[in-house]
């Protein structure tokens, strides 16, 4: 048996589907079709995590306000997909590329290729381990992790057992937050980390992992989740205990996270300002397009959000 696909129907269907998705998938506020009009490409690591959705929204809003033509690419958290998208950006001759790397080591060869093509690179949230980056915009994750440790210790009265939910193995955000948290919590001798497990930054995984860990450590009185999605998974697992006998601190300050802080189930979260990250990236890109110089690094402040100030971060 050789290929026996009814070619005409298949191809027509393919093209039709493409046309349909082309219409459906284009940014309503962006140009459709022609790639040559795409002046700024924003390659984001994933669009299934609210944090990055907010980052992209912030970037889109700013692009509209500044009249920048912005193209969004999403790598679904796969380093190879991102490499492909950045290679495509070179061949479609984008003017500036903003990249939110899936991984700082993996993106390096793509950054070098962009350097070779003389396309300025802006990195957001994570940077590239080598190559020439015009501007790096990120929250201070290590400081944020330390802040989370301080707040959790305060809430627990400086004593008790805690569970540490880790993000995707190898992701720099997980490494940095974990590092900041671990270093700071060590300064509180009354507090003991009884379990460290990864839940991949994922809400449903965190639900299972927390349930299992609470079986093993029923006396645990605190949970640090390296992002809000996992914190909310932990809250679902704990039910009525959340925020009462078990204090939880998250990280990111996503809409759901802030909601949980207001409800009292989440003790606190370290708010990054993803929309501001995206907005700043587009601003820098616009500056580069206008021939202005931009600063090499722009740290975006992380903020401790508790019940008292949750209103300001909605």
């Amino acid at each position, binding site marked *: 048996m050789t290929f026996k696909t009814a070619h005409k129907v298949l191809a027509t269907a*393919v093209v039709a589907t493409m046309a349909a*998705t*082309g219409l459906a998938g284009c940014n309503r506020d962006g140009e459709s079709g022609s790639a040559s009009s795409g002046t700024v490409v924003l390659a984001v690591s994933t669009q299934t995590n609210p944090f990055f959705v907010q980052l992209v929204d912030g970037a889109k809003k700013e692009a509209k306000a500044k009249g920048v033509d912005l193209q969004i690419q999403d790598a679904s958290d796969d380093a190879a997909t991102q490499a492909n998208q950045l290679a495509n950006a070179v061949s479609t001759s984008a003017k500036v590329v903003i990249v939110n790397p899936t991984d700082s080591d993996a993106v390096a060869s793509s950054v070098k290729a962009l350097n070779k093509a003389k396309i300025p690179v802006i990195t957001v949230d994570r940077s590239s381990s080598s190559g020439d980056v015009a501007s790096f915009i990120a929250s201070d994750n290590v400081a944020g992790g330390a802040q989370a440790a301080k707040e959790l210790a305060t809430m627990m009265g400086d004593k008790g057992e805690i569970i540490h939910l880790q993000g995707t193995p190898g992701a720099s955000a997980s490494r940095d937050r974990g590092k900041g948290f671990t270093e700071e919590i060590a300064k509180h001798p009354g507090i003991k980390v009884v379990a460290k497990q990864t839940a991949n930054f994922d809400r449903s995984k965190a639900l299972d992992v927390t349930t299992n860990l609470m079986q093993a450590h029923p006396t645990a009185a605190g949970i640090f989740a390296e992002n809000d999605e996992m914190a909310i998974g932990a809250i679902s697992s704990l039910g009525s205990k959340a925020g009462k006998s078990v204090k939880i601190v998250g990280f990111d300050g996503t809409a759901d996270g802030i909601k949980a802080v207001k409800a009292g189930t989440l003790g606190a979260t370290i708010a990054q300002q993803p929309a501001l990250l995206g907005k700043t990236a587009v601003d820098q890109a616009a500056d580069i397009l206008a021939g202005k110089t931009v600063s090499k690094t722009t740290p975006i402040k992380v903020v401790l959000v508790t019940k008292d100030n949750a209103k300001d971060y909605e």
Partner: protein
Amino acid sequence: MTGKGNIIVTTATTATTQKPSVGRRMGSWALNHGALVGLIILCIALFIATPVFLTVPNIINIGIQAAVVAIMAFGMTFVIVTSGIDLSVGSVAALSAMVSAWMFSNVGLPGWLTLIIGLLIGLLAGAVSGLAIAYGKLPAFIATLAMMSVARGLTLVISGGTPVATSDAVNHLGDDLGPVPVPVIMLALAGVVCWFILSRTVLGRSLYAIGGNEEAARLSGIPVRRILVAVYALAGLFAGLAGLVLAGRLTSAQPQAGLGYELDAIAAVVIGGASLSGGSGKASGTFIGAVLLAVIRNGLNILNVSSFWQQVVIGCVIALAVGFDVFRSKKES
């Protein structure tokens, strides 16, 4: 070794028998090369939508972007021809790259050696699956599902969850050799090996026989068990190469590399006209299938279509390709 790579099972009668007109002949050629015709039409449509699509740099991009999945898919072709399936290739690719990187970064072995070790790890993982299937009588789906989990787990254990730098020898797999990118050379190499084995060797013919009717193959004296072990080992070896090429492109072994790639590889083989019930499949078909997937991704990417919709389109293409295949063979019988 001689012998034509004729497919033993279910011969398809050609659409025409007496003195076909040029038009009918073209029609029947097109019918028999559906995936290729689909690919050509897709390329024309994309070119009309965005002229960038057919520029030389972009065509090179497509070649590089098809390479990893295509290499995996060539290995998968052997397996699918025997009516098996290998769900572990994505994880085995990651494991091969990770062991290779670890041997370089933590043990300090020379680069060329870590490259060979990476390939051997792939071969070994495949052989283990093959043994479980051929001698342990596990269904291929289950054995390779287990291997998928084991290989991914080992990758995470070895790496501690962090990316590990690869050796220069491995990184060269992601470079260019003059004007041609090395991933494309590896794709061609894997494709030629796959074509040669399937259509020019006794082993290849045995694969079709096993896929057509395993019992009959056994009774006619084909050493089915040993061949099955070899087939899964080959698929593992190809997965290992794919993993090393991927690591070379990223100059690091990623713990989550190749996640879900096995499904792309299976899709490429199936779009290329192979049947999951075994006995059919060709290297050229698999190549077209892999390129078709890469073209859809690259094209929709350039057109700025969201990756969410890309998944929808790819799903539709797989369903259409296989659906029409079934429809046509029904009409013929």
